[in-house]
């Protein structure tokens, strides 16, 4: 076992830049400390270790942000907007006017990753990522959702919060845009990485059922799984920062107690799942990292979406590991950014 470990460490070091390796390894080891064998989680230490960034109404690189708290639900969202071309920096946050009356401005509702357990909208890795999306998508607005995490809050809390966030976004007059006054609406894309991708899918399904329009879904190595052990899980177990064992832990922490990984939240095209045929789900962009051990589940997701008549584009990044998009120091990052940009701008 120890010998295997050595090989594993060397392998992952070969495929990512050194600072990326340091970053993700640090997370990995810290997370190992936080997960307890009995399924409980050391939340205090997790919060202590998490590097956070505050919102900032002073624009930085053309983007400013502020947090919004809905008192009745306790849900906090962080809103990122492009710097206003008009008005001094001290101007109040404009909560009265629509984003535009001459063009469509996308609003990307983003669900951060962390396997349902870690991180928050304020985590530095996610704050930084969301900031990038604003100029990338031509001055889009990004709303990052601070959903409740497991194991303290299991399924369906994260989905409920995602749904509440979507409804909140859709009902803000100041998030509307349109080519003219008549076509004013809040133009929403859902996006997320890892568990956030999973949440984005489930919120999209609920939106489709409720007739709420979503323009597209962006799923960045989304977190799916099932009881079976797939080939990729066996082949890549422990090799690139992630183990099957930790995946199991996070599902056990998120799913209702005693549930198996064939629960429909986890195994979306599995034996217990809803039939998505004819649902008219929004078009999806699914990004799979070639060194992610759960890729077989993600590829099965793509296949399932196609099979049920839903439009999906797969981007398979051969030697990408999880978390490749945290630092702009590799080709996969730039490729991803390009794909997202094209996906959001296409009508």
């Amino acid at each position, binding site marked *: *076992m*120890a010998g295997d*470990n*050595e090989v594993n*460490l060397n392998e992952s*070091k070969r495929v990512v830049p*050194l*600072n990326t*390796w*340091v*970053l993700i*390894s*640090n997370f*990995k*080891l*810290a997370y*190992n*400390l*936080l997960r*307890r*064998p009995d399924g409980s989680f*050391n939340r*205090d*230490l997790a*919060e*202590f*270790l998490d*590097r*956070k*960034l*505050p*919102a*900032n*109404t*002073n624009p*930085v*690189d053309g983007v400013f942000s*502020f*947090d*919004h*708290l*809905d*008192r*009745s639900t*306790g849900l*906090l969202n*962080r809103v990122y907007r492009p710097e206003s071309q008009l008005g001094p920096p*001290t*101007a*109040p*946050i404009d*909560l*009265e006017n629509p984003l535009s009356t001459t063009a469509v401005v996308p609003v990307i509702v983003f669900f951060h990753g962390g396997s349902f357990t870690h991180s928050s909208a*304020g985590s*530095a890795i996610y704050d*930084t990522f969301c900031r990038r999306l604003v100029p990338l998508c031509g001055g889009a607005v990004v709303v990052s959702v601070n959903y409740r995490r497991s194991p303290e809050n299991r399924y369906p809390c994260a989905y409920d919060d995602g749904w509440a966030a979507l409804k909140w976004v859709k009902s803000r007059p100041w998030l509307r845009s349109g080519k003219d006054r008549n076509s004013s609406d809040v133009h929403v894309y859902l996006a997320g990485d890892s568990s956030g991708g999973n949440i984005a899918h489930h919120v999209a399904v609920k939106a489709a059922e409720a007739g709420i329009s979503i323009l597209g879904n962006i799923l960045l190595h989304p977190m799916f799984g099932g009881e079976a052990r797939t080939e990729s899980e066996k082949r890549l177990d422990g090799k690139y920062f992630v183990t099957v064992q930790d995946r199991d832990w996070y599902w056990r922490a998120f799913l209702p107690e005693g549930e198996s990984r064939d629960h429909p939240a986890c195994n979306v095209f599995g034996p217990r799942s809803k039939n998505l045929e004819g649902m008219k789900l929004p078009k999806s962009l699914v990004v799979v990292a070639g060194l992610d051990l759960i890729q077989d589940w993600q590829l099965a997701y793509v296949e399932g979406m196609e099979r049920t008549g839903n439009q999906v584009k797969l981007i398979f990044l051969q030697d990408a590991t999880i978390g490749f998009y*945290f*630092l*702009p*120091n590799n080709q996969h990052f730039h490729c991803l950014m390009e794909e997202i940009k094209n996906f959001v701008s296409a009508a």
Partner: protein
Amino acid sequence: MDELLAVLGYKVRSSDMADVAQKLEQLEMAMGTAQDDGISHLACDTIHYNPSDLSGWVDSMLSEFTNPPPPSAADPTAVLHNNSHSAGGNGGGESHKSAVFRDDSEYDLRAIPGVAAYPQADESDKDSCRKRMKTSAGGSSNSAAVSSPSSSSSPPPPIAAAAAPSSALIAEPTRPVVLIDSQEAGVRLVHTLLACAEAVQQDNVKLADALVKHTGLLAASQTGAMRKVATYFAEALARRIYKIYPQDCLDPSYSDTLEMHFYETCPYLKFAHFTANQAILEAFATANRVHVIDFGLKQGMQWPALMQALALRPGGPPAFRLTGIGPPQPNNTDNLQQVGWKLAHLAETIGVEFEFRGFVANSLADLEPEMLDLRPADVEAVAVNSVFELHRLLGRSAGMDKVLSTIKAMKPKIVTVVEQEANHNGPVFVDRFTEALHYYSSLFDSLEGSAASPSSPTTASQDLVMSELYLGRQICNVVACEGGDRVERHETLTQWRARMESAGFDPVHLGSNAYKQASMLLALFAGGDGYRVEENNGALMLGWHTRPLIATSAWQLAR
């Protein structure tokens, strides 16, 4: 510094990257060979410091493996583990003692204010001191490396601040805002307030006058925190416009009373005292005689808890000397002595040798080290404590420098500083106004949530009103006053850090134990949900949701 990692909150020198990577590998190997349970002590017993100093963090984790706290055979809490990973050849039943595994949840519940947690053994105590010193040395050498600008969000510390006026020290660029849903409705009100501030700045009295009246109307249609905050800011603006400056708070007993209510209503002062005391306790761990110099004694609310913790120290309490500094009292009542008597009485009941001295001073800058009867450092350990006092010195040039030299002359083992986490001292009025508006909005919002004890609603609402008055006076000072009268010159942790470091102090990091206990304190005492403790490069901040509001940092003399 690796810029990409710096943006994500991790300070690693590019030249150290390979070394850090290697240590991470070592750590993984060490963690891998220990059983799952065998690493739990890293989460429970080990105190973590400053996760931004990645190298330091990894080092401290590694030292847990190379220097594990010795398991004591007589210790009933030592847990024996069966290492199921042991190679088959060793035969079944091979067991090895792991480090002492404490279920810390029981233990920490005892860390209710009044009892700060003590490191269990002298051994681990020295270890954690070493770790803290090590990481803090790492921290300060970063600032010595200096002047290479890192990311846009962290300005470089000044190298020589001698000639530069203190306000030129790093204008803090971040403005965190948390909007509560009601503020969406109050958007027009905020807009009007800001427009009024703008008019004031431009000396357009007529416009300012019209706007401030309009604000009054708009505020009346609001409810809750928004209404109160707007009212205070409007009043402060009116005072500034009409030059009816507030009576200088020359009645300290009145402001002390208000502060007591503020203390009861919300956790900010409790957090300040608690975290400062934690740092002081750790600094005093091995001293037999200790001396705390409190820059603002007021009602002495911070000290009973420290004294109780000292009384419970394994091996017995040190002799405790307290020097309390306070402003002159109007009726020549000796407030300081009264507080001293009360504390002396407490000390007697808990068995702590106690000595008290009060000093009246108009300003901390009037203090001279000779006045304090300081004893040699090897005889008595000194802590200097300042809770919301230092910022008052920023209105007088050279006041701060004087005080910082005086502190150094006291040769303190530790200096604890608690300050409001906001920049209310910028040179541009409108900026200051906007900062303050957002800051106090968050503060007032948090008060709405935490209207204290349900058992006595009248006391609760009285506490709330007094707390609001307490904050209202600060608002008035920030907005309406100038020059020497403007004493509420709050600056951010980043600014204080730069100031302390250039004055010759090194940071002493507050660790995960203080963090955890502060979090538990909040859960027990804070009425409202939404208070958050955050770790920031070795300092601890208390905030309302994502908006940090006060920051506690600790310092020692630079080597």
